[in-house]
């Protein structure tokens, strides 16, 4: 395949994994995706605070500066509105910038460029110009980062027509979805997560292997209840499902959304139609969050199948406090999630 045709390759079609798989961390999988796409397509470049000399504040871009040089791995001043917008402008000329935002919290200062510029270009200009921009950033809490640094605004971006939003939960999808995002001709926000970077998994290393945008995955099969989640919540969900299988003999099905916009309601509904119970969980605040949309969709799509109302779990609705005890109490930990599953199954004593 020539680079030219590869650039046009439809990202929603996963090529077969010819080159086999390797065990690697989520962080390494993201790096592999960037390296492969930068090798494949000269219009791909990385831009953000500390992505170069510092090797990335969470080391996702480590080594890329040495490999690709400062023009393609560009350190920026602390000017999120400026360099996110610069990514938009470069993308409008056909480049494929990957803008790293240190954490999702800092996207608030660049919100206008993402929501009122990048997302508007295709429709507002009558399809005359596109914006193939990728923004990568971790959400989530933990590690006592406190109120200003522990947030997940996933639903806000997923609620913005003109954007696409993905949130990989495994190293394989971290690589596959980031590659799909880079090849996509629209602005895509890739929501990562701080605690998830160190998670390990098998990753198909084939350079053409991507994860389709808009397709959820049944990450674990089960018949008693459907746990719907994305990102790090899926990691928790899978652990809890195993625990409860052992401790209570319940069979929990886990649907990993992978994409938030487009949202694969069909896979979610098919699972709930089978289990007739649903619990939706997210790392962020559930009220007006991702799980609100999930509950709204499920109750409509599965009205005749539900044995119980759709339940939700997320971060307690407070600005996350610093003290470890308070932070733990507020987060959707495995303990809280397990209790929520049992409660949704009416098994809680």
């Amino acid at each position, binding site marked *: 395949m020539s680079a030219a045709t590869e650039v046009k390759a439809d990202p*929603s079609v996963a090529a077969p994994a010819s080159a086999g798989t390797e065990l690697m961390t989520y962080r390494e999988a993201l790096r592999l995706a960037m390296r492969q796409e930068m090798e494949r397509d000269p219009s791909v470049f990385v831009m953000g605070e500390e992505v170069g000399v510092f090797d990335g504040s969470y080391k996702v871009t480590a080594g890329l500066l040495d490999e690709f040089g400062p023009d393609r791995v560009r350190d920026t001043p602390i000017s999120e*509105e400026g360099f996110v917008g610069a990514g938009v402008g470069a993308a409008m000329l056909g480049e494929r910038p990957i803008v790293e935002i240190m954490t999702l919290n800092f996207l608030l200062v660049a919100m206008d460029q993402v929501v009122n510029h990048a997302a508007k270009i*295709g*429709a507002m*200009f009558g399809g005359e110009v596109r914006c193939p921009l990728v923004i990568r950033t971790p959400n989530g809490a933990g590690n006592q980062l406190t109120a200003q640094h522990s947030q997940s605004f996933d639903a806000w971006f997923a609620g913005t027509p003109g954007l696409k939003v993905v949130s990989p939960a495994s190293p394989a999808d971290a690589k596959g979805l980031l590659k799909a995002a880079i090849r996509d001709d*629209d602005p895509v926000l890739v929501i990562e997560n701080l605690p998830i970077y160190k998670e390990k998994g098998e990753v198909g290393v084939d350079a053409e292997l991507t994860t389709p945008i808009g397709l959820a995955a049944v990450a674990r099969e089960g018949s008693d209840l459907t746990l719907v989640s994305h990102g790090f919540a899926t990691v928790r969900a899978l652990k809890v499902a195993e625990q409860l299988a052992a401790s209570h003999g319940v069979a929990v099905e886990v649907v990993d959304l992978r994409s938030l916009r487009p949202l694969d309601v069909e896979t979610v509904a098919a699972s709930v139609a089978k289990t007739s119970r649903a619990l939706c969980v997210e790392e962020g605040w559930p009220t007006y969050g991702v799980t609100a949309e999930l509950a709204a969709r499920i109750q409509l799509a599965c009205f005749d199948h539900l044995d119980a109302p759709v339940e939700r779990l997320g971060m307690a609705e407070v600005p996350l406090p610093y003290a470890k005890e308070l932070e733990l109490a507020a987060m959707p930990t495995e303990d809280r999630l397990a209790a929520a599953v049992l409660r949704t199954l009416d098994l809680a004593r």
Partner: protein
Amino acid sequence: MSTTLTAAPPTDLLGLYGEMVLIRRFEEAAERQYKAARIGGYCHLSSGQEAATVGTVAAMEEEDLLVTGYRCHGFALARGVTPEAVMAELFGRRDGCAHGRGGSMHLLDVSRGYYGGWGIVGGQLPIATGMALSLVRRGAPQAVLCELGDGGVNTGAWHESLNLAAVWNLPIVFLVINNQYGMGTSVDRASAEPDLFKRAASYRMAGERVDGDDVESVIESATRLLAAAREERKPAVLEAMTYRHRGHSVADAGLAYRTKEEIEERKLADPLERARALLNKRGVEDERIAAADAAAEAAVERAVAFAESDPAPDVDRLAAGMYAPGSGDQFERMALGSPLGERELVFAGGLGE
């Protein structure tokens, strides 16, 4: 409509005058059509700013890129977008330069390197800066001209964009159209440094001010700064001093914050009058000037006629353009359980086709 390249813009004074008078007549027609309810939304006219508009665009090379704010009718016309395509856009019609989806504030013509037409004050600055970055990355010997207003220099986006342009040595000229007011706020009430061009110094960037009502001075300054941007990757700020004859938008009478006297006095510097006087001084016969006036009249009339007869966009294609071709498959599985109307209007409305 917007696919053929324009002939290089005229640089002779009569030609420039012709462009300026076209803009003036166009804006007058736009105001009439707005009041006749054929144009909606916010409609910002550039009457009085023609020399700054025509002069800076005349200094651009064909391959250079243009980015502006929402007061953009004049820039689109100066860059060679046909009056038909602009008026049709204002009417919200199919053959408008944004196919009726953008309206007055969001004109563009990619074939002429005009990338919009943006409505958030300051929002176009980071984007134009990124375009300049892209030019450098691809080794293209071009520059970006990015227009903003005097009110825009107080946004955070101004500061971040100019710093990026300077720290990365990008080929871009930030054109500040200083028409003395941001809506009802005069420059001195908004900017602690009212000599706006001086703010370029904060980025070790060249900054200069020009009489924006003298089209030839504007061309001289803009040509010099654009050349430095192209050839030496030196970004710059050009502040063009001018005046907005009409209100902020067609909805604003423009009198709450300035006096009739001020307006009358400033109109003495009307760039059209000055160009006409200069043409006379240089012995250009009134007939030729009158011919330019007539040509402008006629062009605007043609534009209105075209816009009137141009069909409206197809409502069944509501979602067209929002996502790139091929995205339809990605969204297929989202339709289930969606809010009422989404299937008909959006999923069946050309989404990602």
